């Protein structure tokens, strides 16, 4: 086959189209820009119960995605779950007395870590631990408590 200029151009076009598609998948679909795996600083939080939280779950502050859960472990000394999060370096100024709680997005949605900023002057740094935490709300336990309080009330009256 004789190689014509048109062929060279179209092959070049084809290859760049393919690479552009990959770029689009990486940036627009997987959102490579917001969090690289190396960027950001790590913080820790201990919870009694993390519910359905997973690695790569979102970390939000005021509803804004600020980081992701990178590791989940169990500390057998304190009998609590240890959650390691990576926070985007753009959000440097988070006070140390910030509270972490595990919320559910919508009624059936995924669980994520929500950060409620405190008022301290000092800000979180690499490896800091959040002291104030609130565990995930477990549906069964809530139902149990509700039924228990209801029966207790009935007995009292």
């Amino acid at each position, binding site marked *: *086959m004789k*190689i014509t200029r048109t*062929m*060279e151009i*179209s*092959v070049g*076009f*084809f*290859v760049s*189209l*393919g*690479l*552009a*598609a*990959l770029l*689009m*998948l*990486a940036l*627009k*679909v*997987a*959102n*490579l820009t*917001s969090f690289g795996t190396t960027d950001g600083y790590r913080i820790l939080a201990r919870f009694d119960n993390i519910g359905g939280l997973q690695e*790569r779950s*979102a970390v939000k502050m005021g509803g804004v*995605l600020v980081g992701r859960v990178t590791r989940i472990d169990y500390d057998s000394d304190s009998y609590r779950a240890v959650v390691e999060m990576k926070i985007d370096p753009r959000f440097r100024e988070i006070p140390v007395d910030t509270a972490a709680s595990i919320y559910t997005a*919508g009624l*059936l*949605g995924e669980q994520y870590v929500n950060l409620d900023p405190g008022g301290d002057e000092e800000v979180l740094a690499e490896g800091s631990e959040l002291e104030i935490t609130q565990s995930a709300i477990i549906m069964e336990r809530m139902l149990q408590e509700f039924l228990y309080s209801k029966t207790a009330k009935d007995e009292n009256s």
Partner: protein
Amino acid sequence: MIEFFAWVGRRSLAFFERLGRGTLFLVQVCARLGFLLTRPSLTLAQVWAVGVQSLVIIGVSGAFVGMVLGLQGYNTLVTFGTEESLGVVVAKSLCRELGPVLTALLFAGRAGSALTAEIGLMKATEQIPALEMMGVDPLRRLIVPRYVAGLISMPLLAMIFTAIGVLGGYFCGVGLLGVDEGAFWSQMQLHMALGTDIGNGVVVKSIVFGAVVTWIALFEGFDAIPTSEGVSQATTRTVVNSSLAVLSLDFVLTGLMFD
């Protein structure tokens, strides 16, 4: 009863014989890959024939598959009131499965069958024996450039298919059905991982599929009985065998990649 076992035995022997010959063929092709460094222009022509020529069918199919996903996904999700997750449904199914698998099936039908027919006809019209008699190694001159072109083109086509598919889903979901644009993209970005979904899904799968489909197509062509009937049978075998190979390999790869 005895005949049945004899038949099973014969068929399995024939299968292993072909598999063995095919593997030997692949080894011989791989041993000659270095030849391309001296003649890169040969691959360029084949990327044109295998890749550029498949662009239209890949683009059109990708757009329609994405749009269908948008439509079906929306209809299902809207019953649960979670149509904001449409972006996730479209992107996940395209990147992990539909993108690489459908591209490979279309690639087998469009480029694979053309490769088999071309090589088979070259054999039938004595072009391959003529090359040998001219002291030119047909594996090097004909097969290696086509194999590498398949390896290059297939991942590129899969990426294009997936990207166009996502845009098709976006067009259908956001443009026609009124899903919130911000939710569509942000939900997608929240749940799509670069390494697993894009890297393993689109890139690794399509490279594996490209290697297998091109291998089957070239082997069937090179091994075809050099008559018009033999070439037509070989072309059919290429499409059937590579489709089966793609679907079964997809199961294995999915099992390995996504737990």
